[in-house]
Each structure stands twice: as C-alpha cells, then as structure tokens.
C-alpha cells in the first residue's frame, strides 16, 4: 500500500519543482539509479500512478485498451505533439500494455551489467570526448552516465552506443507513405543495417577495445536489396572516436564498380529517395556529439513509449501488422506502455549553418537512458519531423531469440513522420532477408560481411 499523498499531482509537482531547482536526478520517491542499483527495479522510485496506465488515468484507460481519437485527450500529456495529432486526426492507434518494471528487460543484459559495473568511471576529457577517467582512454562499456545530470551526458551515452550491442545487424523492411495521398505505400525498400563498436565492447572479444581500431567509435553501413534499381547500393560510415569529427562516408553503386567518398556534413537529406530519414536522424543521435550543442534538459515526466511486447513472434519473419490510410498501411500496430519518467533534452544544430531544423527534442527513459522519442522543430519553431519506435525483448512465452545466454533485445519497428508534408516512413526489423541476411547481435563476422569496402563490393555483386 502506498501513501495517497503520492498522487498524480504530487508527481507532477515534484517533476516541476526539481526542474525549477535545477535538480536533474531521476526519480520521484527516491533516486531512480539507487533503486535500480539496489534490486534492478526502478519501481520504488515512483508512485503507483506512474507505474500503470490505470493509475495514471484513474481507470479510464486500462491495459489492453487502445488509445484512439476517442480517448487520446486523457493521455495527451504523455505523447509528443506529432503522435498526438496522428491519433487525433489520421486514425493512428496505440495498444497499451503493462509497464515493464524489470530493468533487465529494457536493454541488453551485458550492456546493463557493464553499466552497473562501470558506474562512476566515466568523464569528459579536455576535448569533450567520453573517457575512462582512470586512464583517459576511450570508454570501456555500458552506459557511461547512468545517473545523468546534464543533457550532454544523455546524448554522449546515446551517441557512443546506438543499439547497445557491440555489433548488430538488422535485416530491415522500409515503407514510405504519404498521408495526403491517402496513405498508400509509395516506396518499398528492403536491406540491411550493420553497426559495430571497436571500443566500449562488453560482449565480443577482444574487450573493451579492438586493437588497431580503437581510434574509431563505430563502423556502420546500410545496403539495399529492394527495389531492383537500388540492389547492391550501399553506404559505409566510419566514425572517428573524436566526438567533433564528421564520419567518413563511402558509397557504392554496383554498376560503376567503384567505391566513392561523399561529403558527410550534408546530413539533412535522405540517403535514398522516398524515405523520410536523414543521416542526422539515426538513433536520435546520428551526428557527432559536438556538431550539435546547447544541450539542455527541458523537462521530466511520464511518457508513453514502446518498450515491450513488440516482437511479432507469430510471423515467421517477424513482420508487423499495420493500420490507417486507404490501404491500412500507414502506421504500425504498435504497443506502448507508461514510462514513469522520461527526461526531455533539447539540442541545437550548432555546426550546421544550413540546417532546416532549429532544435531537436528527445525523450530518454530515465531508468535506462534509452531514446524513446524525438521531434525536430523547423526554424520557425513548428514541429517538423518525429521518430517513435518500439524496443522489445525477443521473447514471447516459449518462443525466444537468443543473444548469447540471454534473449535478444533490440528495436522492433520505427515510425518517422514529416508532420509538415504528411510523409510517413515505417521501418521494421525482420528475421532474415533472402535467406542469408539474418538480424542478430554480437556476431564478429558482421565486420567482414558488411563493414568493409570489400564487403560493400561483394554485397553489390551478389
């Protein structure tokens, strides 16, 4: 039994008062990080009304219900403006599932273990790079700032490790629709996304650094299998560990048989036609940390996000169902749960004098610091583009996808919306493409298969 004084109003007052006092530690009843460190559960840090949708809405929305235009006003404060408008006006709906309390189900196991183990060891060096304070070398693994006090700490952690695995390969299908065109799918891509960390490794040997590559932060590539025109077309980004340096970008078109280098400071254009995705958008931290600036925490409060039950184990290739628009293919059938506390951070594109955006606002789960939503604003301050997705543990009853000793944790689907033009891009992680490109994590062969010049050329030749 909890004391009644911890009602919704109390939480709200507490979030606002802390923000006003400049107290940025997470948690309402006690610091979130202390609760997690004690027993892997953040529940003790929050009152009941922040741990279930029933508590928050006083029973007017229950677990299993759908949020639709009919009841979205009840949870308007839990949504960023773009999802709210889509639900209200465009027929989007979200299914509510129960709040996940076990912290180990909200990130990869090894990442969380390393986070706990390495807590307090991280700092910024003179150049602002995240380092292991003990030796000034690159970070050693896990979230460097599990108890963040500043916006830049949250973004530094996010930029350091996007997918929270040492290496990931995502077999993806991508669809683009236009709300104004009735929501019909105009572009249909499939391909793969690979990312590999040569530093701060927690699963793959050698750990924490990959000798000879430890001046790099990340290798990352994307290649396309469909449509036929784009088959074999690929891009490779190689990130320097220095948090101010733009990555090197290579592109490959099979017909030309040559790898080409592209300028990488043009990050507000889609990589391929039709998809509403910019390089800058990747994981809400697609650019080097210090090419953005004026990071500041602008608010805290509960939020609705997809953190669980988003793996479609019923489909052999994990493909998700959809709704909305004339063809019923405008939005993912998505689940959301009440996140007791999100930390909202804003940042400005200080190194992009031509950027069409004035700032981005990103919601981080206060318990895990995972990004759970992003909205960018145009230079007039109007909402421009938004990103919302769903993470999940790939476990459903007896069905499981394993990542080493533990069930695989990853994202399941993402929705990227340009609220001004009405274009909606949907991405989903599928099991396999063409029988040989399998989604998965921490497989050392990902580097040779997807992340070298030779790999790009052989992908193009296939």
């Amino acid at each position, binding site marked *: 039994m909890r004391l009644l004084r911890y009602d919704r109003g109390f939480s709200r007052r507490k979030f606002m008062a802390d923000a006003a006092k400049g107290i940025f530690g997470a948690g309402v009843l006690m610091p979130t990080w202390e609760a997690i460190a004690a027993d892997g559960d953040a529940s003790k840090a929050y009152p009941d009304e922040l741990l279930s949708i029933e508590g928050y809405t006083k029973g007017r929305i229950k677990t299993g219900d759908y949020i639709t235009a009919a009841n979205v006003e009840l949870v308007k404060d839990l949504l960023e403006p773009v999802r709210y408008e889509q639900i209200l006006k465009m027929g989007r709906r979200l299914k509510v599932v129960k709040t996940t309390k076990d912290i180990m189900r909200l990130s990869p196991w090894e990442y969380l273990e390393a986070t706990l183990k390495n807590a307090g060891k991280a700092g910024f060096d003179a150049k602002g790079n995240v380092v292991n304070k003990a030796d000034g070398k690159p970070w050693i693994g896990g979230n460097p700032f599990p108890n963040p006090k500043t916006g830049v700490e949250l973004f530094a952690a996010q930029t350091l490790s996007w997918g929270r695995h040492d290496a990931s390969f995502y077999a993806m299908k991508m669809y683009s629709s236009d709300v104004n065109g009735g929501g019909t799918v105009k572009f249909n891509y499939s391909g793969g996304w690979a990312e590999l960390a040569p530093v701060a490794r927690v699963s793959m040997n050698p750990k924490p650094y990959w000798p000879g590559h430890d001046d790099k932060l990340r290798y990352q590539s994307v290649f396309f299998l469909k449509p036929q025109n784009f088959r074999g077309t690929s891009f490779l980004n190689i990130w320097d560990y220095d948090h101010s340096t733009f990555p090197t970008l290579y592109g490959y078109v099979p*017909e030309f048989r040559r790898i080409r280098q592209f300028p990488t400071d043009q990050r507000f254009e889609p*990589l391929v036609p039709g998809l509403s995705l910019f390089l800058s958008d990747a994981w809400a931290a697609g650019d080097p940390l210090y090419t953005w600036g004026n990071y500041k925490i602008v608010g805290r409060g509960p939020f609705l996000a997809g953190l669980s039950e988003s793996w479609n184990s019923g489909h052999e290739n994990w493909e998700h169902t959809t709704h909305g628009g004339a063809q019923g293919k405008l939005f993912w059938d998505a689940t959301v749960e009440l996140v007791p506390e999100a930390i909202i951070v804003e940042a400005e594109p200080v190194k992009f004098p031509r950027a069409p955006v004035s700032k981005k606002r990103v919601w981080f789960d206060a318990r895990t610091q995972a990004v759970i939503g992003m909205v960018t604003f145009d230079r007039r301050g109007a909402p421009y583009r938004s990103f919302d997705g769903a993470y999940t543990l790939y476990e459903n009853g007896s069905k499981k996808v394993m990542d080493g000793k533990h069930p695989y944790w990853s994202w399941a689907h993402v929705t990227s919306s340009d609220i001004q033009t009405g274009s909606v891009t949907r991405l989903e992680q599928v099991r396999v493409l063409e029988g040989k490109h399998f989604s998965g994590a921490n497989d050392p062969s990902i580097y040779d298969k997807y992340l070298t010049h030779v790999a790009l050329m052989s992908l193009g030749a296939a």
Partner: protein
Amino acid sequence: MYSLRLRLAQWVLAHRGFSFAFFIVVTAFFAAGLHKVELRTIFSDLLPTDDPFVQVYQDHPNFGSPLTMMVMIRRTDGDIFNTETLGKVWKFTRDIDLTPGVDHEQILSITTEKARYSEATPFGIDMRPLMSDRPPQTPEEVADFRTRVGKASNVRTFLISPDDKSTIIMATFIEQKVDYGVAFEYVQGLVNQARDGHHEVYLTGQPALIGWVYRHEWEMVGIFAVTMAILILTLTLYMRNLVGVLTPIITSAVAGIWAFGFVGWLNISIEPLLMVVPLLLTARSFSHSVQFTERFYEVYAQVGDRRKAAEITMSVMMAPSVLGILTDILGIIVVVAAPIPAMVRHAVFCGMWAVWLIPTGVVLISLLLATLPAPKNIHQLVGEGRENGVHRKFQAMLEKLASLSSGPKARWTTIVVVVLSALTIYTSSQIKIGNPVEGTNLLWYDSEFNTAVRKINANFPGVNTLEIVLEAKNQDSEDWVSQRADTVMTELKLQRLMEAGTAPPRATLSFADYLSEANRLFSGGDPRWSPLDPRDRAISAAAVGAMMGSSTKNFGHVVDGGLQNSTVSLWYADNKQETVDAALEAARKAVEQVGVDHKEFIVRLGTGTIALQEAVNRVIKRYQWVVIVAVDLLVFILCSLAYRSFVAGILLLIPVNLANEALIAAMHLLGVGLDVNSMIVAAIGVGVGIDYGIYLLSRICEELQGNGGDWQAAITASLRTTGKAIMFTAAIMTLGIVPWYAMSGLKFVADMGLLLMAIMAINMTLSLVVLPLLVWWVKPSFALRHNRWVGESVDLTKFSAH
C-alpha cells in the same frame, strides 16, 4: 394572360402580411448561409477541363513547379561575385526558409547545399556545396566560389544569369500547408527588405501570383463600397425622395443576400475575379427598380391609392420585367457550355442572382411601394416641371435620332449602317484568339509581378515552359519507370529533336541531364563518360548515383514523387502566339518521331504555361461562337414567344449581335485578342443588351396602336420617352462598373469592366439607331396586335380616383 397577372398582383397585395413574412423567412434562410460563403480563386478552375493539355496538367500538376516562388536578386552596379551580394543571397535563402508553409527540403539557391559542384579525385567523388558553411568574406573566397561555379553547369544555366549580374532563389511550398496570402506577404516583406541602392529584387511564381491576386481581391471591398456609394448618390440625385432611394436599395440587398446565401448553402466558392458581373446585376436591379418606381408614381398620381397603384404597377410591369431578367439569366448561364469550372460556378451564382431579381424586383418592390409612405411631391415627380434643361436636350437629341431612323432620311442612314456593319464584320473577323502577355493577364503589364516575370525571363530560361510528359502505364511499377532506359533515352531524343528543330527552345531539361552528370562522376570524372549507356541496369545505376543523398523532391520538376512519371521541360523566350504555335508544332513532330506508345509509358503533350495558354485559346476558339449562338437561339425563342412573332426575335437580335461584332472589331483595332473575358462579356452583352431592344420595341408597339399606325410618329415618341429610359439604364450600369475599371489592381477585372461598359454603350447606341431603322423598313405586323405578352399599356381611367 393580363388578367392572370392582375389576379396575382391583387392576391399578393391583398395578403401583404403573408407576403412580407414570406420574404422575411426566405431572406433569413439565405442569410443563415452567408457565413459559409467562400470567396476563392481556384486557378486550375479557370482552365477548360476537357482540353487534352489541361488533362495532362491535372494528371501531373507538379511539373512546371506551380508551388515554387522564384526570387531574382540582381546587382545593378557589377556582378554578384562580391561579399555583399553573396551575403544578401545567403541571408535571403535562410530567411525564406522561415516562410509559413514552405517545404524545408525544397529551398534552392547558390548558397544551399543542393547547388553542388562535383569533381572526381583520386580519393573519390568530391561533391560539395558551391558555398561553404558561410558566405565568402574575402576577395580570395569570392574568387574560389566563382571557380567552383564554373564546375557546375546546371547552376550556371538555372541559378546564375549569363551576365553574372543576377541569381535565383527558389522556395517550394507544401500544398496542404501553405496559405498563399500569408506566404506571399512574408516573402514580399523579405523582397522589400533586400532591395537597396545596389540590388534589385524580383519575385515571381504561381504562389506569388496568387498572393498578389489575393491582395488585390481585398481591394475589391473598397471598390465595392465606392460603387455602392456612387449608385446610391445617383439614385438620390435622380429620385430626390426617400422611398425612391430606399426601394432599390432594399430590393437589391435582398436579392444579394439570397444570391450569396444560396451559394453558401450549396458550398460553392465564389470567384472574386468575376465579381464585376454581380455588380452589373446590382446596377441592373437599381435601374430596374427606378423604372418600376417611376411607373408606380405615374399610376399613383392617377389612381391616388398606394395599394391599388402598386397592384397595377406590378401587373403591368411583371411581364416585361420577367422577360428582361430572363434574357439576362440566359446571357449569364449560357457560358456553362464552355467546360471551365470557374465559369460554371459563376453561372450558378450570378444566374441565380438574376433569378432572385424576379421575386425581389417584381413582388417585393410592389409590397414596399404599397407600404412605404408615398412622396408628397408626387405630381411634381411625374409632371412636366421635373424635366429640366438636360432632359429637354436629351429629348431633342433623341428626336433627331428618330428622324434619321424613320422617314425620308432613313434610306441614307440605312446605307451608312449597312456599310459600317460590313466593315465591322470584316474587321471583327480578323480578331486573333488569345491575349498573350509576358507573365499573367490577371495583372497589369507594369505590375510588380509582370515586371518581375519579364526581368527573370530576360536573364534566365524563365517561366515560359512546355512540358512533354512521359507517363508510366503502371503507376506502381517496382522498376520505377522514370529510371528505365527507354524512358531516359526517349527524353534525350526529345531534347535533341527539339533543340535541332525549327523552333528551338532556349533551354531544355530532363532527368536524363542529371543522369549524364552522375554517370561521368561515378565513372571517374572523365567527360567521355557523360553519354549514357542505354541499358536498364546502367541507367538505373546512374539514377541511383544522381539521387544518392538527395530527396526525390529535389528532382520534382523533372520526375514525380513516385519516380514513375517524368517530363522534358522546354523553355521559350516568350509566349507570343507565334512562339506558342511554333513550339507546339515542333513538339508534335518530335513526339511523333519518338512515338507516343511505348512498352512502359506513353508520351503526352503536354503541360506548362505554353500548353495551358494554348488550351485556353482553344476553348475560346471552340466556344466563343457556341456561346453566342446558344444565347441567340434562346433569346430568339423567348422573344418570339413574348411577341408571338419570329420577326420580333430577329429584329431584336440584329442590333445586339451587331454590337458584339463592333466590340470585337474595336478590340482588334486596339490590338487585343479574344479571351475568357470577352467570351463572358459577349454572352452578357446579348442577354443584358437585348433589354434595350425590348423596352424600345414594346414602346413602339404601344405608340403605334395609340396613334393609329403612324410608324414615324411611333418611333419618334418611343425614342423620346423610352430612349431616355434606356440612356438612364445604360448610364447607371456604366456607373456601377466604372470603379472596377478605374480602381482595380487586377487587369482581368478591369478588362472585364471595360469590355462590359463598351458593350453596354455600343448596345445602347445600336438599339437607338438600328432597331428603329429595322422597324421602319420591316413594319412588322405583330406591332399592331394587342395580344403581346410584354405590353405595358393599361387603361388607367378604369382605376382612376378622379
């Protein structure tokens, strides 16, 4: 028939309470629809829907960049390659991105990252923005920038003028988000800020045009107020009593409420560009009310009882009023024959407005006259004392005119009229179709917009484009038809044929141009790699290369958003009819040579300003005479029925058609071609102009019957009396239109006003000369019959109180 009208008039005036209640209820009903009224110019609705060019335009609305604003910054004392001008271009580009409704992905200038120069290096392709992350700040940086510009051929053609003095900034808007008025006012504000002693700034593009039109449409409120003030002043001066002034205002206002409320309930938007026609109707309603009221005074002076006088006036005026209004209605609605949606809406709005003049101008006015207190100076109003010197001079002039149309001088007048008519018809047959102006015919030649269009056309490929569209047969093709070898090679062939043809465009552009450049760069940079390999896979690879790191929207002017349809854009120096004809002829031949039907697409000619101008010309060519013949036929039937004589129909139609010919001949002599305006005016000219003939012919018949068949005396008496009324009617209608001609910033509205004034004046003159002449020669037997429907005569002695 007359007794039926009398019975109706008796019933209405015997149940005044009920009748007033009816009008109040109906007016309240329509007034409730007023808040739904929308005045809106839908530009695409000014185009004929059945024209093949317009259909291509409607199927591919994005080709020709209809949502793009184009700004030209011109350095007046040197070239743009200096820190001040480049800084200004940078700032303008950043500022235009702040315009409400702009698509942030579609801003283009020499300062944006989309204006790139490319070169192949040993390390890869260096594709960088022409300008770095800030405008050049030193002479060395300016020199570097100029060098880079030299490596970007498309930038040279489309963004910097050949004399290096001008550069273009383009911003495209999101159709669902943009409020054209707001966006235009914002960008126009930037334009005004950017102008200084060294820089001229010009703004064009369809969104800017719409913005200008909206701005001028707001002026119409002021013009409307001036018009109403003039009409009321005229009324006051003419009537000099409250009832005489109030009655026309109330009846016209009620008809106006019904008209606006009706379209409000139907959710039909009103085209402000055609607002001069309802104003004409208001003026018409005023003049009609004045004549009705004057007749009432005459009757009232005789019978001495308001209700009785109203009853008699209503019964005698009903038929001629209804006939006159019916011809107006026909003149207005007959334009629906032309398949132009704006005209159909206009016909519904104005046609119904004219319909509402029947109950208000016949019934309501009678109720008002029977109810409002009669003026005390009634005998003075109808007596001789009212006729001052001007009236007498007019009468003398009209008597002189009558002597020319009848009696011995008629022979000479006839010869003059016949010769002039022949000359008029010959001259009018020389008229050209179309009124090409550089820019838009909606605005004046020296308007800021048209000046900007001319300046941009003089320095860049400009705005006069012809688009040949390659339309995919399968809009969901997974192979993206715009990127197939056949499509791209057809584009190239079309470009080659047009460039080598008899009327070569000043520039051409297609997706193929971008592919050639990508092909060169990805193949190592050697210009020998520019030619495209005509294999699907090679073309597809070049397309991938061209679009890498770039939104499809950046190619929206040559390829549609779904990458299925594409266009070949051809720019011409001007849109003179000769240029249009030659361009279309060359394009037809080119299309024939490449073939229309391909495996995956068809070649459609075409869209763009050149094709759409031709489409409008074609609809005028096709429907100008259809509209005239239709209105003639309907009016002929109506008048023949009214006078129970085909001869009457013919007699009435000759002057109005001659008036039309005279107007067209005058336009030709002034170097103006036929356009949408003249088509509307011609129809209204017949419909409204025939009223003069009806007034005069009816009076001649009455006078003839009154004086025992003396034709000359009848004609003279008719011209003295009704001729004066015709002059008053024409004057009040002209007064109603003058402000629209004199004050409107919209040339389209002013032109229509001018044409309407001209046709009214010509109609009036010809009615007063040609109709009496025809009557004199033909001496139609129907004129002596008593059973005409439109007779206004009544034996007032039956009702006399004296």
